[in-house]
């Protein structure tokens, strides 16, 4: 067993314990944003995808690099954006009515429409 492996395993175990400690404190209200945030964090695999480029010099390597970069980038960008979008909705007090879109005639429009306009 190499020193590098021992170091890696140590880091893994400690990170696991830190994760359990930190995430155990997240309230149930935020569990969906939490999972979405965790989702964006595992988008770190983008780093691994980029590193494929270091040694990829043939068609197979390029294809794998392309697909991995595509997957990981979708994961990372989508994850962070949607987490931010969700967290923006959590308010301590209901938003005061004037904040809602001052749409001319369609003030009574469906709430779903209002949301899609806002985002």
């Amino acid at each position: 067993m190499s020193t590098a492996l021992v170091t890696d395993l140590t880091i893994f175990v400690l990170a696991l314990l830190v994760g359990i400690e930190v995430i155990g404190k997240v309230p149930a209200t935020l569990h969906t944003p939490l999972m979405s945030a965790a989702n964006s964090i595992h988008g770190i695999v983008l780093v691994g995808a980029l590193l494929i480029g270091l040694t990829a010099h043939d068609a197979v390597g390029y294809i794998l690099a392309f697909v991995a970069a595509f997957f990981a980038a979708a994961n990372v960008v989508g994850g962070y954006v949607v987490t931010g979008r969700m967290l923006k909705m959590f308010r301590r007090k209901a938003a005061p009515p004037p904040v809602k879109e001052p749409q001319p005639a369609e003030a009574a429009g469906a709430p779903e429409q209002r949301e899609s306009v806002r985002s």
Partner: protein
Amino acid sequence: MTTFTNSIQLVYVLAAACFVIGLHLMNSPATARRGNQVSTAGMVIAVVATLVLLIHEGTVTAVGWTVLIVGALLGSAVGLWSARTVQMTAMPQLVSMFNAVGGGAAALVAIYSYIHDESAPGGVLGSTTVFTVLDVLIGSVTFTGSLIAAGKLQGLITGSPVMIKGGRVINLALIVVALGSAAFMFTTASLPALLLVVLASLAFGVLMVLPIGGADMPVVISLLNAFTGTAVAMAGFVIQNWALIIAGALVGASGGILTKLMADAMNRSLANIMLGGFGTGDTAVAAVMAGDAQIRSIAADDAAIQLAYASKVIIVPGYGLAAAQAQHGVAELAALLEARGIEVSYAIHPVAGRMPGHMNVLLAEANVPYPQLKEMDEINPEFPRADVALVIGANDVTNPAARRPGTAISGMPILDVDQAQSIIVVKRSMGTGYAGIDNELYANPKTSMYFADAKKAVAEMTAAVKTLVG
């Protein structure tokens, strides 16, 4: 390791610290947005450091740069578009898709690393192969499993359990093939063996999720989230990268905790859920109350009177509420009641939605302030003081039958709705919930049934309250 690569690893540790702090800040809705920003900053740091490393090494070919940049830009565009346009009711599908691509990318990293190592003189290092195999196994299972889960949630694949004849035998065979090929890889570096592992794992992912019913999705998504994290951590071992190891471990921990919370909230073991087919058996005890029970039906006006003259109302939302798109209407009704000085809160069962915490997001989107969203343990002692409990689209999680042994839901933690002074249940029909058993709450003398679609019922009640109080 050179000083340069060492510094890059240190930057990765900084990025990982940002992830931990970001997750820590999610312990309160007030700081959660900042947490997401800190986490994003960590990710940007890690990606920039990687690009610096790629440039410094100078071994990336022109084609290499092109595929990486085009791939990443296309992926970013797809991710951005889906994140911007997704409906909050469809969040579980999106999370599932992100699990799929994350797990898939992690598997690809290991596959590439293996192919690359195999062509190098000296073959594959044994220690690398353990993680390679685990990464490929878990990543591939996550990839197809998550796609199937997303398909079920989106309604592309039936939400009810799909039981394939001999499915368990096939699963067992796939496990044997995957582990057998993996074992062979330890003795001889072999690309076909690796491909066999990939194919068997992909097939296993499909067969693992197909037999699981729609309402078990909170557990499945959490579990697949944990899988993805683990796969990413394994990819970190394969390419000796601390950022991947730490981030993967954090996600693995998060997914693991949520899986346990969800399974506990249903009082079912993980094995029981994964073996699937819930709601297909256990019907023997079903018809306890059918005969002599008195069901009281109620109309909008009576419901409005009860609500308008209450001093404390607890709303109990279930997935039926979201399915009927009634969350905005409920928020409006609640705001109306609050304006009359009535205390309104929401009792949210952990499995009220299709993923952990889903219902909270749906209500937050409908402009419900988060202090009104109460967890089960917090709200249960408050039910006896509530004048009205308004149950909308929730069924099994309110069934008092869970308190005694011998039913399909025995032992499942429930919301103590029956303790409220009066109960109004909005429901389309007397149909049973996911567990396939009658809800004894409906026969309770304090309960009035309001038979209507959730959205329509809420609108009618709101209108009636308005007329009533002018």
